[in-house]
Structure formats: structure tokens, C-alpha cells
């Protein structure tokens, strides 16, 4: 019996030692492969969220084809950081907490809402030199989106303009020209005019399950602020926030927006295709490749216009940025490549003519005939509108606590729209919750 126990113990011990050795061995193997890899090529790790991974891979392939001198030197590895920018932010927080800045990816993507927190973390390379050198060539609206406080934070992966996408065929039949809408009342009147011809059609969809991107796009146009410059929450007294809440209620009450179709639901996809949704007021983000993918049979039928003049200024959450990890051994190379990726005519041309058709960020491109062209899906007015919208770009004054602020304010917009709370109670509750959960917006 004792002998059997001893044998079992020895066997278990051997198994554990073997296991540990195997683990150590695999690490060694990894190290050596990484080393041999660096001997040949530099691997640049770019962290993207799920839905952007394929686009990023394609775009960097286009870049390497355009600048073949990098092909032998660099390998771009696009890695996923989760389902959205908040997941990437969370990963970076944890890595920063454990002092692993060097292990972070070389290039990190984020939405503008996360920029202040990255700034506070102090892990992002200041690229002010790039903008000092190329500033004259870049569209001013794009330039303004790359700066936070005293630092240029990164490079645009996508500039989120305020664009209104509409069904040209339906609007024309109803005799509506979206470019003539100057106010919110004009917008509602346009919707009603379309409904005279298409009674079951709506110009937008706002449900009680409110969405942050809708609300913040409106905020950027009316100067709304949840917190003042000292970080004190003021949303119950800020006229812009109140105006934004009232805008959504007004639109819903007017009957020109659907109150039952939720973004990204099956109802939504069906409604975009069958004309139940004849326009999307907040469409800057999905004009490039989302709409052509979602409604492939409607090529040539969608047109783009600016928002009504009164609320045209702003953006939908600013931009998606690519930022360089300051501790990366490849930081200089990343800055050099990103500068070429975003701010050279060769790259702008190649990326514009690639599958997604990225809108260029250079002044010279905005004036060039090469870019003012129609494509398989849109008429020429698309590019004219996009460049005009870039002149109107501005960003909401996000804080390092924007993620939680958005969660809270959007929920109370839902409470207001559902009639559970009146406007004053909803705004007061949101403010109280921000004070309780966050305290000061900049701490």
C-alpha cells in the first residue's frame, strides 16, 4: 500500500515537473521566435476593436503596396482588443496598472471619448512635431480633432462627420430638398412632407433605449456640457443638455421618427432596405462602407446632405484615432508610417480608391478633381458634402470620465423619453448620479 502511494506520489511529481518544464519551454520557444522575427522584420502591433480589424488589415496592405520600401522592414500585425474602444481602454488601464507599458501594442486605436483618459495616463507619444511640420497641408477640422489640451495625440483612422443620409428617390418624389433645411423645425417639416407621399416612412429612429452616439452628436452642435471646466457636474442647469433632451422628445412627438425601430436590430436593417426608414440623420459613420453593405440593392438611391444649418456644426464622437505607445521601441517608426498613412497624397489616393474609400484629410485632396467623383454607390455629391462637413467639425469636451458620464446621461434620456421621469427630474437624477459615482469629472 505504502509502496503504491509512493509510486503515485513520484509519478504525480514527475508529471508536475514535466508540465512546468513544458510551460517554460514554450516561453523560451516564443522568445526565440520573436527574436528571429525581429532580426528579419520589425513587427508593429496595432490594436483594433473587432469590427475594425478587417478594415485595418486591408488598409495597411494598401499602405504597404503604396510604400513598398516598408514591405521588407515592417510587418503589421492587427490584433483585436475587444468589441469596442472601451474594451481596449480597459486592457490598457490594466496594463498600465501592472507597469507593462512596454508590452502594450505599438499603435492603439480609440474613439475621441477615450482621448482625455489616455492623456491622463501619460502613455501616448506627443506628435505635435508632425502637426507643426504638416499642419498647413491638413484640413483644419481634422487638425482640431487631433489635439487635446497642449498635445497632438495621434492620427485619424476615421473622421466622424455629421452627415445626413437620405433616400434621394423618395425625397425627390416628395419634393423635399434636404439642403434647404436650416432648422430642426425644417427637418420635421421635411419628414412630414415625405410622409404625405410615403405615410409609413420615417426620417430617423429614436427609441426609449437611447443611444449615446445620437445624443453626443447633438451635444457637439449646441455647446452642451455635462461638467464645467473645473469638473463640477452641471447637467441639470446646462441649457445645451436640456435642449438636446428636448430635441429628441420633439422629434419623437412629431411622428417623423420611428419610436420602435432600434439601431442594429433586424427591424432596422429591414427598414433601411424597404424604405420604412427613408433617411438617417446621424449617418457620417456608416456612409463609407456600412450602408453599401447593408443595402447593396439601393446603389445610387442614397444621397448625403449636411445637418440643418442650426445644428450642422460638430461631429459624431469626434474621430477614431490611431495613437502611438510612447514606450514602444518602434514609436519613431510608427509615427513615420502613420504620417505617411494619413498625410500623403499617395496614401490618400490609394486608400480612397480601396474598398472602404477613406475620405482624405489633406487640403490638396479636397480641391482635387480626383476625389470629387462618384463611386459605385454614391453620386458625386457625397464627396462635396463630406468635405463641407469636415469644415464644420468640432468635438464635445470629453473628460477622463466620459465613459461613465455617457452611461449615466443616456440612461436618463431613456427615462425621460419613456415618460418615467419629467425633464427636470431626469437631468437632476443624472447630475446626482455623476456626482455620486464620479465626483469630479477631471479626477
Amino acid at each position, binding site marked *: 500500500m*505504502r509502496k503504491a*502511494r509512493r509510486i503515485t*506520489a513520484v509519478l*504525480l*511529481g514527475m508529471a*508536475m515537473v514535466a508540465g512546468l518544464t513544458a510551460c517554460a519551454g514554450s516561453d523560451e520557444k516564443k522568445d526565440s521566435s520573436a527574436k528571429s522575427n525581429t532580426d528579419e522584420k520589425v513587427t508593429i502591433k496595432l490594436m483594433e476593436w473587432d469590427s475594425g480589424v478587417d478594415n485595418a488589415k486591408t488598409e495597411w496592405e494598401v499602405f504597404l503596396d503604396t510604400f513598398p520600401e516598408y514591405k521588407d522592414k515592417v510587418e503589421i500585425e492587427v490584433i483585436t482588443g475587444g*468589441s*469596442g474602444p*472601451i474594451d481596449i*481602454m*480597459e486592457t490598457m*488601464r*490594466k496594463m*498600465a*496598472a501592472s507597469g507593462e507599458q512596454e508590452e502594450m501594442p505599438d499603435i492603439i486605436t480609440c474613439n475621441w471619448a477615450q482621448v482625455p*483618459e489616455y492623456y*491622463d*495616463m501619460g502613455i501616448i507619444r506627443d506628435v505635435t512635431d508632425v502637426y507643426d511640420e504638416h499642419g498647413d497641408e491638413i484640413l483644419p477640422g481634422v487638425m482640431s480633432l487631433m489635439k487635446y489640451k497642449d498635445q497632438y495625440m495621434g492620427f485619424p483612422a476615421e473622421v466622424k462627420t455629421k452627415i445626413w443620409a437620405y433616400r434621394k428617390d423618395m425625397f425627390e418624389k416628395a419634393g423635399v430638398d434636404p439642403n434647404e433645411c436650416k432648422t430642426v423645425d425644417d427637418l420635421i417639416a421635411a419628414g412630414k412632407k415625405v410622409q404625405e407621399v410615403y405615410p409609413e416612412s420615417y426620417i430617423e429612429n429614436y*427609441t*426609449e*433605449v*437611447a*443611444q*449615446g452616439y445620437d445624443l453626443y452628436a447633438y451635444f457637439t452642435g449646441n455647446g452642451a456640457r455635462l461638467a464645467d471646466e473645473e469638473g463640477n457636474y452641471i447637467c441639470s442647469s446646462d441649457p445645451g443638455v436640456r435642449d438636446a433632451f428636448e430635441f429628441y422628445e420633439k422629434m419623437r412627438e412629431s411622428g417623423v421618427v420611428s*419610436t*420602435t*425601430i*432600434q*439601431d*442594429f*436590430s*433586424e*427591424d432596422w436593417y*429591414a*427598414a433601411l432596405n424597404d424604405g*420604412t426608414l427613408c433617411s438617417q440623420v446621424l449617418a457620417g459613420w456608416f456612409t463609407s462602407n456600412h450602408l453599401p453593405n447593408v443595402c447593396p440593392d439601393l446603389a445610387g438611391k442614397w444621397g448625403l446632405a449636411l445637418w440643418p444649418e442650426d445644428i450642422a456644426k460638430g461631429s459624431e464622437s469626434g474621430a477614431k484615432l490611431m495613437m502611438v505607445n510612447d514606450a514602444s521601441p518602434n514609436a519613431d517608426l510608427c509615427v513615420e508610417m502613420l504620417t505617411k498613412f494619413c498625410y500623403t497624397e499617395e496614401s490618400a489616393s490609394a486608400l480612397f480608391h480601396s474598398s472602404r474609400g477613406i475620405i482624405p484629410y489633406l487640403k490638396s485632396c479636397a480641391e482635387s478633381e480626383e476625389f470629387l467623383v462618384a463611386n459605385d454607390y454614391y453620386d458625386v455629391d457625397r464627396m462635396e458634402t463630406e468635405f463641407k462637413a469636415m469644415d464644420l467639425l468640432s468635438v464635445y469636451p470629453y473628460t*477622463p*470620465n466620459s*465613459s*461613465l*458620464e*455617457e*452611461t449615466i446621461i*443616456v*440612461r436618463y434620456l*431613456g*427615462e425621460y423619453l*419613456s415618460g*418615467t421621469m419629467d425633464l427636470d427630474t431626469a437631468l437632476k*437624477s443624472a447630475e*446626482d*448620479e455623476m456626482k*455620486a*459615482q*464620479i*465626483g469630479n469629472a477631471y*479626477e
Partner: protein
Amino acid sequence: MKNTKKKNKSGSRGFILFLLGPFCVLHLIFTIFPAVYSFVLSFFKYRGYGEAKFIGLENYKNLLGMSSTWRQMGNTMIYYFSHLIPCLIIGFILAYAVYNMLGKRSQRFYKPIFYLPQLCATVAASMVFGVIFGTNIGVINQLLGTKIPFLTNLNYIKIPVIVLIIWRTMGWYFLILLSGMSTVSTDLLEAAKLDGANRIKQIRYVVLPVMKPIISFLIITETMSSIKIYTEPALVTNNVTATSMPIAAAPFVNVIVSNLDGGQFGMASAAGWILFGVILIFTLIYMAVFNEKGGI
């Protein structure tokens, strides 16, 4: 002789330690340490970088003072009770019917059939339910000839979530209760029959008391997992992140998730410990009820 016994005892003790050692070390590193760390963190304001600021009970005070915390806890309780009660009753009826009225062969057929939803990925199931409950193209609305906005009106939004939870967990209840049925001695049932007990009386006085340990196991384990519900409401309400999950549908775990997403680690930890407290209270109540002499 005495020495050999002592040697034997210490040898087997060493062997036991050798076997338990790896588990204890891993448990200490991956369970106990994070738990203690999060408890300490719940008294701090900490973003994951920079300095952690000690704020005492402030996180707990703020959380408990917010009405949305209580509403989200209320949602959790609605999700919990609205599936626990029907699943227990229907699961028991199904298990009883399959065990007593159908043969052993049919058990082989029904077990996987009822358990199948449990194997289905929550994400996939939630997406399908999103389609089933859609307003315009949803199966239910098309069958009823209605346009009920199950997923976009805050008055209805809990319904699809509850239906999904019942659909997913029913199989688990059925399986556990069916295995519990096998602990009921046929002799006891025969004796009850001879004494003139009808089916209801057999269930009331024989089956349920014998199955008490199984039912208590089922309720306690379900309580522990159900109070932590998050994925189903998040996905059915078409929100892959907590960013815009409405208060009317959000479960309590959403407080933890949204604070983690927002970099408020101290607040998230405090919410986690509040949830732990709630689960502990429920577990203790159930243990007291089931340990009571003659309980159910």
C-alpha cells in the same frame, strides 16, 4: 508498532498535502488574493493607474444612496424570481411526468431535448430572441398580428429577457429534478399507494420530502448564478456594452460593468461586495429553510 503508526500517519498527511498543495496555492493566488484585493479596493477611489485615494465607506454610501442601484437590484430580483418559480414548477412537472409516466427509453430522448437550450451559446440565443421579439419582422408579432415594441419600449423590455432565461434554464432544472426522482424509493411509493394516497398526496408526502436535498441544491446553486445575471439582458436589449442599457432592464451586475468600463475600480469593487452580500443572505435564508425540520 506505535512508531510505525505515527510514521504512517505523517506519511499520509504529507501525501494529502502534496495532493492538495497545488490547488491551495492556485486558489490562494487566483481566488482569495483577488477577493481580498477587491475588498480593500472598495474603500479607495482608483482608476487602475496613478494613485489610489482612500475614501473609507464613500463608495458603499454613494452606491446605496442612488435610486438607480436599487432599481437595478429590483430588476435582478424580477429576473431571478420570474424564472425560479416557473422553472421549478414546470421542471418538476416535466421530470415527474417523464420519470413516472414514460419509460426509461423515453428519458434518453427527453433529457437531451430539454437540455439543449442550455448548451446553446448565450450570445447566439440572445440574438435569435432579438429576432423573435422584433417589432416589425419579429415572429411573435407576426403570429399575433400586432406590433408590440418588446425590445424598444421600457414597459415591455423585461419580457423577452425573462422568456429567454426560462427557455435556457428549464433544461437544467428538469435534469437535476429528474435525477432527484431516482432517489425516491419505489417501495415508499408503493406503500403510499397501498395506503390510498393519490398522485398529489404521493408527491406532497413522499416525493418532495425525499427530494428535499436535491431541491435545496438546485435552488441554492441557481440563486448564486442567477443573481449575477448580465449577459441575457445586455444582449436582448441589443447592447453589447453597458453604455446604453436602460435602467428599466439593467440588472445589478450592470453597476459593476459600467463602473469597470468607466475606470472606477473602487466603486465596481464595492458593488461586487454588495452583490456578494445579497447572494450570501439568500443562501443563508435557503439553508435555514431547508435545514428546518419538516421544511417543504
